[in-house]
Structure formats: structure tokens, C-alpha cells
């Protein structure tokens, strides 16, 4: 255990006790930060931006406008995330903070396991796709997508799909046709037409409410969905069929930089959280699902491009 006072973090009067270990400390001391790591000798820095260089055992605790609240006198600090510098690189880590006011609060989650490196985005060029293990049971299933669409969103001759499935007239599909539309149930179209190309945008849907990048909303009715065995939702395209051997047929593939994609069931429970990354052992690019703890790779052709490493 090491208690390190932040002298160089630029945050003045806050003192944290940063502890490394694989189990949460049993003692409850105000402003203790526990980092889930086998490295026990830790130093730390508090900063909204990542230090340009690091030393082994240095924990960067990112501060932001939101996050776990820690009080120092009349000042409130928000701990947003944590990363540990080891062997020449930063890696996101699980971090908890104890305060007398809030007890233990988790403020940092590990994006991907050590065997992978998280990247800013995964980019498809119109030939790649990923088949997930998700099967929506109701159009109330929600999502939170963060992406830059690279294909045209004004063409009415092609309909590249960001994700979805459309089998036996049961649809749960988001495409980029004329600014984007959400297809749900049997031939129902939730018009939105508010997506643009070459601009990073976020689109959310929770249960029946879709929230557009301009923060306006629309209501999508809940419709039950039923699929034959083996049908699964795809990303970067849409699932249209499944063979007798279980191979999912995917079409209408899109050109997209995907930053992250979450799915929620009809109860608004997180059922999929896909994080762009690559496998360190062979540089295979893909999506890590934090819910299933499973790595999904390209099942189409060519190769995904990736953005820069992130923690």
C-alpha cells in the first residue's frame, strides 16, 4: 500500500490515498482510491488530460465536470476515470473511491482486458461486418451509438445500415437512407433524417424514446419481435437471413467510424457494450463486448482500420 500526496497533479489542495491491490480495502478512510491491480507501489497524478510521459506504477486519475464526487474543503473534484502506466503504455483500470459521504463508489471501468488495446474508433469501408449474439425481442430495445458516417446519407439508391436485422418482415434496423431512419417491426419506419455524413454524432434510444444529435426526440412504439433460431443482430450492416448451418447473411454494409455502441433491452438494462480495440497478440481489430466479455472480429472481407490507442 502506498499513500501518495498529489504534489504535481495541478489540483492544489486535494490529497488522496491511492492503494493498489486485487481486493477492495477493508478499512474505510476518507478519500481513499483503490486501483484494481497487482501492482501495489503506485504514484498518482490528478489531471483532466493524460500526461505526455509516464513511469511504471503512475496512475493518471482523470478529472472532469462529472464523475465520483470528492470533497476537499469547499471544493468538489470529480474523478472520471483512471489509467495505469506499465511497461511503456497506459492501460485503463478499475478504480473506486471511498468518501465518508458516499461510501465506496466506482469511478473507472476497464475498457478492455490486458490482452487488447482500446482504440478511438473502428472504421469499416463497406465490406466488413460483425455478427453479434444479440437478438432483440421487442422494438423497445434501445441503443446509444457514437459514430461518424462516411458513406452518403443523401442517396436514395442505397441504404447502408449502421446495425440491425431484417428477417421475415421483423425489423430492428438503423440505416443512413436520406439522413437516417429506424425500421422496426413489420415495415414500420421511424423517420428521423437528422444524421449527416463526415460529422461525429451520437444517437440514443431508450425504450420508446429516440433522441437525435440535436437533442430533439421522437417516440417509437413498442412492437414484439420474434425470430427463428440463429438470427442475430449485425453491426456495420444488417442481418437478412440465416442458413441451415447457422451462417448469418449480412447486406447493406456501411462505411462508418464507430466510437462505441451500446444496446439496452426493453427494461433499459445494458445488454451489449461494444468497444473498438485490437488484439495485441496478432493486431486483429474488432469490438470487445464488455457485457459478454467477448471479442468480435470481422466476418466480412478486407480489414477494419482503427483510430489511435486510448486508455
Amino acid at each position, binding site marked *: 500500500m502506498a499513500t501518495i500526496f498529489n504534489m504535481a497533479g495541478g489540483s492544489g489542495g486535494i490529497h488522496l490515498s491511492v492503494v493498489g491491490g486485487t481486493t477492495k480495502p477493508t478499512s474505510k478512510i476518507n478519500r481513499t482510491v483503490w486501483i484494481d491491480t497487482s501492482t501495489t507501489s503506485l504514484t498518482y497524478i490528478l489531471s483532466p488530460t493524460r500526461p505526455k510521459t509516464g513511469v511504471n506504477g503512475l496512475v493518471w486519475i482523470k478529472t472532469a465536470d462529472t464523475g465520483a464526487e470528492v470533497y476537499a474543503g469547499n471544493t468538489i473534484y470529480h474523478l472520471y476515470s483512471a489509467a495505469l502506466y506499465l511497461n511503456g503504455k497506459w492501460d485503463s483500470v478499475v478504480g473506486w473511491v471511498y468518501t465518508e459521504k458516499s461510501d465506496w463508489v466506482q469511478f473507472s471501468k476497464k475498457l478492455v482486458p490486458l490482452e487488447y488495446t482500446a482504440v478511438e474508433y473502428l472504421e469499416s469501408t463497406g465490406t466488413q461486418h460483425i455478427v453479434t449474439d444479440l437478438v432483440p425481442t421487442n422494438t423497445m430495445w434501445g441503443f446509444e451509438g457514437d459514430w461518424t458516417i462516411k458513406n452518403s446519407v443523401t442517396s436514395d439508391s442505397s441504404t447502408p445500415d449502421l446495425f440491425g436485422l431484417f428477417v421475415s418482415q421483423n425489423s430492428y434496423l438503423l440505416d443512413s437512407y436520406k439522413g437516417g431512419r429506424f425500421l422496426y417491426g413489420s415495415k414500420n419506419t421511424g423517420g428521423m433524417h437528422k444524421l449527416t455524413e463526415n460529422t461525429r454524432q451520437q444517437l440514443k434510444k431508450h425504450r420508446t424514446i429516440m433522441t437525435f444529435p440535436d437533442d430533439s426526440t421522437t417516440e417509437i412504439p413498442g412492437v414484439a419481435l420474434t425470430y427463428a433460431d440463429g438470427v442475430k443482430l449485425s453491426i456495420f450492416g444488417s442481418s437478412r437471413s440465416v442458413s441451415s448451418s447457422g451462417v448469418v447473411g449480412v447486406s447493406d454494409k456501411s462505411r462508418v467510424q464507430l466510437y462505441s455502441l451500446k444496446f439496452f433491452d426493453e427494461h433499459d438494462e445494458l445488454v451489449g457494450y461494444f468497444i473498438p480495440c485490437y488484439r495485441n*497478440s496478432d493486431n486483429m481489430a474488432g469490438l470487445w463486448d464488455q457485457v459478454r466479455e467477448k471479442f468480435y472480429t470481422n466476418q466480412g472481407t478486407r480489414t477494419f482500420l*482503427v483510430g489511435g490507442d486510448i486508455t
Partner: protein
Amino acid sequence: MIVYVDIKHHVYASPRDDCAAIETSIFEGMPPNVIECYKYYPADDIHEEFAQAWKSSDEIACRQVLSDFEDLTTQNEELVDTIATMVEDLYQQDLEIIEGE
């Protein structure tokens, strides 16, 4: 398509003395100024083919917009030339008709 890769894996769309020419489909459809935002690592016995951005996503987006603008400017110039040719052809046809009368 052929790209050119230097010793630090930076990609170039045009030939350079210090670069190896490599054939790959990974950058198909991307403008040259965007391709040059990436590092490229060819596949070997252990590793998959790998292309990773070394410029920020904001910079890449700016370059994409610039490339799209240049494409539209070129298309516009071609359309203006085509229209000018059509106008000239019509003028010559009118002249021939007038001279024939």
C-alpha cells in the same frame, strides 16, 4: 491499390525514395490526404494486416471535408466546361443556319 510505406510505417499515396511500395485493398475508396493519416503494418506469420491512424480523428475529418470540397470543385469546373462547349456548339449551329439562309 499501391501505397508507399516508410520505415516508421507512415503511409504515402505517392511514390517516395525512402518508401516501400505495397499493394493492399485496406485503403480502397479513401482520398490520398486521408490515407496519409495512417500507419500500415503488413500481415506476417503472426500478425494480421493492420492500419492505424496516427493523426487525430478531427484532423482526418478536416482532410476528408477538404478532399470532398476539391472533388466538388473539380466536378463543378468540368460541368462549367461542358456547358461552355454546349453553348459554343449551339452558337456555331445557329451561325451555320443563318449563313445557310
